[in-house]
């Protein structure tokens, strides 16, 4: 038994008998660990704020009286027709090249980016889990076909395909979501397949079969809960990929079309003005950076929180806290536990 487990037991002893009946699920334990990870908490707050701003974008627009697609040639542009800087004439983050409010457009861009990121990851995760489960559980010919198809998708130069599809089908939100979803399921599918291959040999799967459970019940009730952890981590890390992918397509002019704001097309338009209007490039880029960074850090945090191996890192902190608490209410039995934990 490792030190961390003992520490944990000591902590649950302190928890008292009132929580004795209901077992703590994996998720409750993960949540407890995640809450003590400062970086992950900051990332979570950042994401919540960003989502909040995106949802509240119309309200913010009416607050500053600047709808996203209205140009203000008189107040939003200077004498030579260039964007005005942050704080000028009520434009908090300045304006863009046609005199529109940059801040409002960034928040409207967040709506698109987060929507695309979350929807494509959701579709990709559902498809990936389904394909991976079916391939891994049924095996044989089904697996051979699905696994080779997955490999083919992973091997495909996806930017090239995405660009050609956008050109052929014409750029639209639906095409973007379709393309990004199509390229995000394969990685998840491969992980799920591998996990399923090992999980289906467990004795509890045989127990379920001996009870008469059908293949789909086994897949979704017995196997799926065991692989939600890696899938959740992967999905969290796929969201920023999708956000960047959308920005890339829009930047190249194949994604969201102006005048609808997206971080990608704001950046594309901004590149001609970086010498005269730094804010035009910096603020949308910063929004993109902060969002992707927050999702990546949260994903790392969830992975650490779910992996019992990292318990040791957190245990040091928890141990320090527990010791100081013990000094206050010096119980002899707890001191014993601490002694054996140190041994």
């Amino acid at each position, binding site marked *: 038994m490792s030190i961390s487990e003992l520490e944990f037991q000591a902590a649950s002893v302190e928890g008292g008998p009132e929580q004795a*009946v*209901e*077992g*703590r*699920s*994996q998720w409750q334990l993960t949540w407890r660990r995640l809450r003590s990870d400062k970086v992950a908490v900051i990332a979570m707050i950042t994401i919540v704020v960003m989502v909040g701003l995106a949802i509240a974008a119309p309200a913010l627009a009416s607050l500053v009286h600047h709808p996203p697609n209205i140009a203000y040639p008189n107040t939003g542009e200077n004498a030579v027709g260039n964007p005005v800087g942050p704080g000028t004439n009520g434009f908090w983050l300045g304006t863009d090249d046609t005199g529109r409010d940059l801040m409002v457009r960034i928040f409207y861009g967040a709506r698109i980016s987060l929507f695309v990121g979350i929807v494509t990851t959701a579709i990709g995760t559902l498809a990936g889990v389904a394909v991976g489960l079916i391939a891994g559980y049924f095996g044989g010919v089904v697996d*051979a076909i699905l696994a080779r198809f997955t490999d083919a998708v992973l091997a495909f130069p996806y930017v090239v395909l995405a660009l050609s599809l956008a050109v052929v089908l014409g750029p639209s939100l639906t095409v973007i979501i379709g393309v990004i979803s199509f390229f995000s399921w394969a990685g998840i599918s491969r992980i799920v397949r591998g996990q399923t291959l090992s999980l289906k040999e*467990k*004795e*509890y799967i*045989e*127990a*379920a*079969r*001996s*009870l*008469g*459970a*059908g293949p789909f*019940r086994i897949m979704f*009730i*017995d196997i799926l*809960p*065991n692989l939600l952890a890696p899938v959740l981590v992967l999905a969290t890390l796929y969201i920023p990929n999708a956000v960047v992918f959308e920005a890339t397509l829009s930047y190249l002019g194949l994604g969201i079309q102006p005048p609808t704001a997206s971080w990608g097309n704001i950046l594309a338009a901004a590149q001609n003005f970086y010498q005269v209007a730094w804010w035009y490039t910096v603020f949308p880029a910063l929004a993109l950076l902060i969002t992707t960074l927050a999702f990546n850090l949260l994903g790392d945090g969830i992975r650490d929180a779910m992996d019992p191996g990292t318990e040791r890192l957190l245990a040091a902190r928890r141990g320090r806290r527990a010791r100081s608490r013990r000094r206050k209410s010096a119980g002899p039995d707890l001191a014993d536990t601490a002694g054996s934990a140190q041994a």
Partner: protein
Amino acid sequence: MTDESAAGVMTGAQSSQDDVLVRVDNLVKYFPVRTAGYVRRTVGQVQAVDGVSLTIPRGKTLGLVGETGSGKSTLARCIAGLIPVTAGKVTFDGHDITNLSRRKMIPYRREIQMIFQDPYGSLNPRRRVGAIIGDPFAIHRTVTGNERKRRVQELMERVGLNPEHYNRFPAEFSGGQRQRIGVARALALRPKLIICDEPVSALDVSIQAQVLNLLADLQRDYGLTYLFIAHDLEVVRHVSDSVTVMYLGRVAESGPEDVVYGTPRHPYTAALLSAAPAADPDAAASRQRIILTGDIPSPIDPPSGCRFHPRCPKARELCGHEEPPLEVKAGDGPTHLTACHFPVEAGENLATAAAARREAL
């Protein structure tokens, strides 16, 4: 297996014909050995079970013993319909249940339940105990909602668990408690037959006794029939009404528990019994172990004739050519069957013969 041996089993089983719950006739299970890669050629067969016949009377316990690799667990899985059978027949309560499709098997799944060896591996770590024990009700859609919860808690109480632990996870229980969860799950649908695949071999001895006593109580209360697999001879002796000894996919000897343990006729049974540790040190000191030569051979390429002949202290030339039928030997009761050309006689000292054979090698 030859025709005479099958006939021998029939005559042997005749006496209990009237109330037989499970009848296995000449069951064969080969696992193909294939090469890796896309073109998978079959290069051999693992002859896990090769012509086994047995009967289990209703309400009784049949103990199945044998070394690791003797085909006990494979046989159990064939009877439970978890793996397809290569040849032979399994009859349950008068119905042929050999190789039924999953759907056709469903009604029999309610009647045949299994308890598994590993109390850690046989419970899904991500599901709460209440859900695990309630699984049989959910799968067979018999009871739902609050009624299901009540039944699950009843079952938990029946097997000696605290019903308030309904919402806990398997990881929060000890090995013995986990095995009780497995027993509760097997019991949920009031089956007729419970196949216990080494149910106590992963437990401490003190806990083993508790679980065995629980199984005995349940058998008495619900009239259960057990197929009890173990490699611990004392455990099998304690629970069984009759015993079948398997060696390398075949039955070596079978008969009532006291007869097989008291006067074993097959040299393998005798060797197995002599190898079991005795609790009494005086008895252990005076006992002569029959030490066999070599290991159990590979089931991919089993020996010809009697499968035990390369290791048998009594083997003669005939044993390598001709397979001995499983039959009643002279002087034995009608239910005591032995598959041996030269069965062990009363008072014979096999230990000396085995030692002499080891010397010769």
